[in-house]
């Protein structure tokens, strides 16, 4: 059952991705990318990763869609028709083929002896509750075991926010001067 669900979701993902590439109207593209995020979130739910699914649904389908709509409102609603560039096409094809080749050396899906399962993972799972007293092991790893990494992530969000604010403040100042 869950496998059928996987295939249906992956097919819908591929269809949405093709739609995003083919469409020229940017509002529709933004909506489709929101749907894409929602499909990915459903896939995470099927994979028993509700924490990641919640993030993907909130950030990808919710906030990013609104910010992209804001960007479309500030720029243009129609994508310019780009001419065919053979070199770029070649780079994309070669990179894609290399990535597909790379997946062949990944451990099989859900393998017990995959590096992710045998490193520190088992220790977190067996000792996490005793050491932190937090039932949700994802929160324990994120905020306690990997607290320093998470601090870095928050600083990344801070710098991204500061960057956006500075860029858009510059735009507003330039417009104000032009208007005077």
């Amino acid at each position, binding site marked *: 059952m869950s496998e059928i669900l996987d295939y249906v979701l992956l097919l819908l993902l591929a269809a949405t991705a093709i739609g995003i590439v083919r469409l020229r109207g940017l509002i529709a593209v933004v909506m489709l990318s929101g749907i894409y995020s929602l499909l990915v979130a459903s896939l995470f739910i099927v994979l028993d990763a509700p924490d990641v699914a919640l993030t993907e649904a909130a950030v990808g389908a919710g906030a990013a869609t609104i910010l992209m709509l804001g960007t479309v409102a500030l720029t243009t609603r129609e994508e310019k028709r780009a001419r065919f560039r053979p070199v770029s096409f070649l780079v994309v094809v070669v990179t894609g083929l290399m990535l597909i080749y790379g997946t062949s050396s990944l451990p099989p899906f859900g393998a017990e002896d995959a590096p992710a399962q045998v490193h520190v993972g088992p220790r977190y799972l067996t000792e996490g509750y005793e050491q932190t007293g937090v039932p949700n092991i*994802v929160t*324990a790893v994120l905020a306690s075991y990997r607290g320093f990494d998470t601090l870095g992530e928050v600083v990344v969000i*801070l710098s991204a926010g500061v960057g956006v604010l500075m860029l858009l403040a510059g735009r507003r100042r330039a417009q104000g001067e032009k208007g005077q």
Partner: protein
Amino acid sequence: MTDDVVLRVLAKQMIPFILLFALYVQFHGDYGPGGGFQAGVLFGAGFMLYGMVFGVTTLERLFPGGAFRIGIAAGVLLYSAVGIAGVLLSGNFLDYNVLAADPKAGQHMGIIVVEFGIGVTVAAVMIAAFYAFARPKA
């Protein structure tokens, strides 16, 4: 700003629940799925919905943008303050065990405060960026 009555009424009914759900995700993250990142975005989404339906200028009159610019830094500072508190209490940076007499209680306290810091920064960045994008052109 929209004149659609259905949208306005629905948004008004939904926003309190969105904000409440964000707080639930924030403070129940120890027990269920969720945490600061998700809660921050949800909280921000509630504000964005209000801004989209009732106009960004109305929202900005209620909650001036400067508050969120302070919030962006405040969350990161709160997170780092927990880390430094660990050092001052003769532990390592971000060591929660020393925050309370019982290591587990310390872990709990540290995680709650740190997650709250994450939530504040994420929500503030979302709302400040929304203001920057959606504010009518000067």
